[in-house]
């Protein structure tokens, strides 16, 4: 993304050069939004619903999403399941290994605020947004596969609203 980050700075100076930026943005948005590859990271009960969403009846592949086993090849991480205090640093390490642009979906009640384990549990992280920055929250315990598909479509809308100047180096 190095050259692309510098391009709007130069093309804005030419009269009519903004069209380069908008055309490039449209192409990039289609490329990113329609082929999000997610990391297989299922911890607890929501992982079974994630597997069902990727299987025959509700299909992830029609949105272009496909699972990868290593974070270096993924650009989306769907955190499905409870994150405990022992697992927190490992999640941070996986997030750091992903290349930009990267997105995070928090699936299920446990990742939003601790879920049914908020009270009386001594070993559960109460929400993942103080470990990694989250883009989309999907509530439910566990959420239905249709909710997960809708969350992914919201993420695609969010990607299409981004501008190249968000990634630009100042």
């Amino acid at each position, binding site marked *: 993304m190095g050259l692309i980050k510098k391009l709007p700075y130069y093309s804005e100076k030419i009269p009519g050069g903004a069209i380069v930026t908008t055309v490039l943005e449209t192409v990039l948005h289609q490329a990113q939004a329609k082929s999000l590859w997610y990391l297989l990271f*299922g*911890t607890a009960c929501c*992982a*079974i*619903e994630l597997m069902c969403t990727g299987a025959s009846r509700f299909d992830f592949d029609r949105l272009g999403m496909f699972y990868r086993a290593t974070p270096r090849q993924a650009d989306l991480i769907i955190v499905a399941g409870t994150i*405990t205090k*022992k697992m927190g640093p490992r999640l941070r390490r996986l997030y750091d290994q992903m290349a930009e642009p990267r997105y995070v979906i928090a699936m299920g009640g446990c990742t939003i605020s601790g879920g*049914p384990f908020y009270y009386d549990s001594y070993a559960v992280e109460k929400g993942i947004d103080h470990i990694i920055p989250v883009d989309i929250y999907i509530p439910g315990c566990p959420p239905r596969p249709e909710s997960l598909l809708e969350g992914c479509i919201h993420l695609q809308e969010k990607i299409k609203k981004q501008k190249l100047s968000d990634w630009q180096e100042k």
Partner: protein
Amino acid sequence: MVELPTEEFVVNMGPQHPATHGVARLILTLDGEKIVKIEPVIGYLHRAIEKVCENRTYAQCIPIIDRFEYVTAMSCNYAFSLAAEKLAGIEVPERAEYLRVIMLELNRIASHLLFYGVTAMDIGAVTPFLYGLRERELIVDLFEMTCGQRLTYSYNRIGGVSRDIPKEFIPQTHEAIKIIGAKLSDYEGLLNENPIWLARTRGIGVLPKETAIAYGVSGPVLRASGVQYDIRRNDPYSIYDRFDFDIPVRYHGDCYDRYLLRLDEIRQSIRIITQALDGLPGGEIRAKVSPNFKPPPGEVYSRIENSRGEMGIYLVSDGTKKPLRVKARGSSYNHFEVLPQFGTNLLVADIVAIFATLDIIVPEIDR
């Protein structure tokens, strides 16, 4: 041929891995491709369910115990309700017992279908994953029709069940088990005689009978090593002594036998469901239990035959409305403990096959 000197090195099969079912970690010491030592590490999903249950009333504990083993959530609820009913001496009505048996056996079939899909995917075949989950959706539709949830049901309550079945349930169940019974021959045709499958699973990971009993292994893993012990037959609970079914046993104890045994068990569960649907009586679905349920002081260890093995709940009551101690015993705890005993003549690919056929679910280990 010159022997090159090599030294051992340590590889981490870490918490995030596609072949560990959840967040289990193995530290492998390798000498070339052969495994010298296996050290399991757990604790990445320790959610303190037992401490949470000590501050909830008995009825509030049931959704928490659901998350203890979410693939067969009906069994978890049932084990807890059985323990509380034995403490207080409650009689459960007949219709509730029949409904419980039908739901437990449907859940066993769903869990074995998930095992079939995920095991084949771990060993490398991707098609059975889509077939197994497609049939599992038929059963999940039945559960959704009855209690509204797809995964963590909270259907069994203390004294009975929570809702009665709607009128479409019985014809749709007959339809579903007919389809599943017919598809089983498709599943066997895909994998049973396949030379790649036989090379990956036959003769791999043999567990001898004495080691299995000494380490507390139970369920299909024990029956594949030649011991005919099933809690539904040897130590019966509920109304299982009224039904006519066989207990399949196999004698080699390798991965192939463990896989075949679970397909046999699906057939036996279909037999039980057919008999239970034919004999379903009318009547109440729940005994009268006061909202302020306070069992007399005592303790009980209740156990049931889950699809993975023996699941037990040890419950202590001191006469108040909250339990004093709830300990949940899952069979995957012992199965993970016996993993280093499988011998030292294994390759890395064999560990994946053994791990998949032991059918381990991580929250049973960590709670």
